[in-house]
């Protein structure tokens, strides 16, 4: 069991670091997806640990939510791209201090 959770945590951490170091909004978003996937792995593993399917249901919900989120996120990114011709998150820094 431990190894699954450990893997999940490693993936999660890698995803989190990815969010911090990548500048392309789409890649940043992919990193978030990676984190979601890592979470799903945890859900599924815990589901097996506890012997109930709630975790799997949760993973299923996460997938649906992720789908919706991706749509919204990508459309926001696209609309910004149309305006700025850039997908770098660093360029969007007018609002500050």
């Amino acid at each position, binding site marked *: 069991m431990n190894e699954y959770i450990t893997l999940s945590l490693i993936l999660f951490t890698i995803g989190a670091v990815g969010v911090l170091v990548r500048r392309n909004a789409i890649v940043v978003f992919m990193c978030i997806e990676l984190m979601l996937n890592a979470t799903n792995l945890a859900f599924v593993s815990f589901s097996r640990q506890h012997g109930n399917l*709630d975790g799997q249901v*949760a993973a299923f919900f996460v997938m649906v*939510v992720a789908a919706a989120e991706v749509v919204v996120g990508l459309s926001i990114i696209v609309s910004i791209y149309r305006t700025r011709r850039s997908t770098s998150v660093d360029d969007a820094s007018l609002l500050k201090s």
Partner: protein
Amino acid sequence: MKTLITATDLPPIKAPEIEYALLGPLFIIAGAAVLGVIIEAFWPRATRFWTQVVVAVVGIIAALADTVWVYTDLDKVDADLVARGKVAAEGALSVDGPGVFTWGILLVFGLLSMLLFAERRLEGGMSAFTGRAADAPGSASEAEAIKLRVEHTEVFPLALFALVGMMLFATSNDLLTMFVALEVLSLPLYLLCGLARRRRLLSQEAALKYFLLGAFSSVFFLYGIALAYGYAGSFELSAIDTAVSNRSGSENMLLASIALIAVGLLFKIGAAPFHTWTPDVYQGAPTPVTAFMAAGTKAAAFIALLRVFFVAFGGSQWDWRPMIVAIAIITMFLGAVVSISQTDVKRMLAYSSIAHAGFLLVGFVGAYAGVAGSDRVTSVSSTLFYLTVYGISSIGAFAIVTLVRDSGGETTHLSKWAGLGKKSPWLAGAFALFMLSFAGIPLTGGFIGKWGVFSAAYSGGFWWLVVIGVLVSALAAYFYVRVIVLMFFTDPVGDGPTVAVPSLLTTVVIIIAALGTVGLGIIPGPVLDLAQHAGAFVR
């Protein structure tokens, strides 16, 4: 694995029991939202705007009426627990006093915000939202869209979805539903943030930031849920509570879960160090959306926070209370201090909302649940009242922000507000009133709210936190007072600000907010009793 069993061999799945009567308000709002989407598809453009407004407003009013009905109908389940209400929808929701009270205030915030959404007089007959979000700012097609006066009437169903998400969030009884609710409330808000008519770049930037950070935080929240599940084997708050009480499972997992779940919720209420999105998003978003967000999200998220921590993690409160204390102090202090050097009204209000999150956390950390048979102000009731007052004042303040304009739309730079009191004393007076309420000056609702949360903290044994709280309040008062100085005691620069004459909608919002702020300060009794009557969370 018997994956290949044919369907007929399986026992039928039991139909779920849904207490429609109890969940009426949720379904009304959801229905109104869906209706809005349908209208979007089929209704003629000419009258679509007002139809959407009517659907939204009527829907909210109906839901509000239903909420009142539900609230009065809640039964006293257990006299000892002083909790009223029941767990509904197969354990997904707990329709209890605090939850339904939150529905009520959320619906009121929603209603007021819808009125602001519907204001069309300020932009020469168009709403505050961009006509066609897909156009690049400044492009010819945008000009065409403006010429043809197209509007995104989708904002109404989107706001209604967010509203229903908030309501769901506040009453979720299991973490999974809570997660879904979190997303339901967040996604529309991400979208709404990017739809400002003026200053499109800022608006889009706000949407992007809100979205990325929101998604980032909700992943942590989700991982927290996973760990909680790993700990307790269930998503239900009461089951987690049982596990916590029995101390079964790995302590570490519980603690990590608490930390991560806290992150997601603290992000939504804008507590430090998860507040960084707040100023940018508040500033960039269209002002009516900011108003809606500031009032609604904070209320929903706070009640969810209280619910999770009191119901599920109540048994390990000695573990998490120090953490919340630290966060409360940092949040109050940071919000109050940084707002001093702000030059933009909306940013200042954002930092102020951070500071208020800190004050609310002070009440939360008291974790005072009251004793049976006593009328004492509890953490829950004081938080409910504070949220009510803060929301009302906030909406009022943002409504006024929409009225102070120059040729480029709203003029939010504070220097442009100089001398407003001379030009338009009533408006400036109302804004000053909201500022005083934020500062917690007596005879305004903010004072009673502060009193409540401090008393809860005090009851919970944190008198020294109360002292820190009042000192930070004084700091915070400094910048509210500065705005008043600017409006009333400073001469306007050049021509000074222009105050647009709003339609009845915004006027009504401001008047209601002002009356509410004063009313809650002078006769807080009814609302306070209502909050008090809400009792504890059901488990």
